């Protein structure tokens, strides 16, 4: 499957703002958690 970050905007059209904002918060939280996991793994390796 091709990586296409700007496709699918029409999927979100018409959905209420709270639902889209909730998705943004969830993806944001997941991204921060991934970086947190990477940072912790590095800490285990280095310290």
């Amino acid at each position: 499957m091709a990586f296409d970050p700007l496709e699918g905007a029409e999927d979100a059209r018409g959905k209420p703002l709270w639902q889209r904002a909730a998705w943004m918060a969830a993806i944001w939280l997941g991204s921060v958690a991934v970086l947190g996991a990477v940072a912790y793994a590095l800490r285990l390796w280095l310290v």
Partner: protein
Amino acid sequence: MNDEAVSTCGSCKQRHAWCETYIPITARFGYSRVMFDQADALLLARIQFAFTVSFHFIFPAFSIGLASYLAVLEGLWLKTGKPLYKDLFKYWLKIFAIAFAMGVVSGIVMSYQFGTNWSVFSDITGPILGPLMAYEVLTAFFLEAGFLGVMLFGMNRVGKGLHFFATIMVAVGTFISAFWILSVNSWMHTPVGWSVGQTGQLLPEASWLEIIFNPSFPYRLVHTVIAAYLTTAFVVGGVGAWHLLKDRTNSHARKMFSMAMWMAAIVAPIQIFAGDMHGLNTMEHQPQKVMAMEGHYQSHPYGAPLYLFGIPNDEEQRLDYAIGIPKLSSLILKHELDAPLAGLDTIPDADQPPVLPVFFAFRIMVGIGFAMLGIGAWSLFARYRKRLYDWPWLHRAALVMGPSGFVAVIAGWITTEVGRQPFTVYGVLRTAQSASPLDAPAVAASLIAFVLIYFAVFGAGTWYIVRLMSHSPHLGEKGVKRSETGPVRTAGITPGPTQNPGHDPDALPHDRKEAVDGV
């Protein structure tokens, strides 16, 4: 110089003017003796930091500018609806994601290294630098990394508006991140607003604003952020030029080349001006760094020459094989031909930076800056003649200059950091008194591990970025015409034979030649 302080300083055995500060600090830890007994461990720790920071600096120098470029591209796409901007956004987003990931991971390693190899520095400066570095890390986590996920995977969930908001947050996050880390770095060059506590730590005085906006910070922030924008502009311009050399009708390559050359033409002169201001600020606060940059071992009471070339000889305290322009350095630094300029002969030996790396790194940085200015001017002339996309020598020059920004920022980094030596906090804390009390084999082992892993991981990442850049900006745009003069498909779900004659009908041709010739 306080002679009494010098004669009573049994801790570090060196002449300096800040013994009253050093003695309580070093006596508290009892490390200075250990440091001098373990000079090899100190050297290895310095090599390790130089290695890891040089690797790290490459990635934010690219991602700071690229994040803003992506925000501009997405904004233009939303405003104009032109698919060209959307294609360019998609093309550079993949590259940004990889560069950003490598920048964040190598940055985390840097943070940990303050604790492993530079624990005395961290302990002494922690009350001041700790909060500022924490803000930098929080920004990297919660603005840059968090919203990058939305940028990459969120369009079909959050819609165009919130997606654009996320892109802007990433761009703003890279700038705020740079703001905090450069404030930290600048304070190490021009420490203000501190006092020595009873524990020997450096403590903040009344004003945090004085610490954050320390005297060299505004100049360093402007000079470094502009350097990052120029670095990105020349990478984008180099990639655009590469594809123009293959196909000058490629509209995507034309657009990215044109945008990059506007940046070069407008920002390169501003950067030279900002660099000059930064240099004048450095002369005011760190004169020995400027003496090293200029190769001025001797004072010049009646106007100092600008040395274009020479071989610094620290042992003899002279510049061998020097080629210089009389009085020009005085004119640049003091705006007067006969203005006196002090040399390193006015600085105690123990407080002098190593001149050779500073002298050459400064010339490399300045040389690249003027080359960037030349490319910008050349592009303006080509644009005026309406030949911006038609002059292959301009494209070749832009291609060669593509990675020049990275060389310039590393050279600039060497100039300013080596120029601060032998201090980590200028005039307050020596490098030899900042390192952890580690044995040389321990530091050597981690250094070898860093070298192996960095070259493997970041080498692979960089190779993949270059591979992505080598593909035409049309990559992944199935069903979209491949250039202004290419075939236009109006129906069907598979590529027509004119787009990919004699090949897998599900695969698009890689370039215009393949599309036309089928080879």
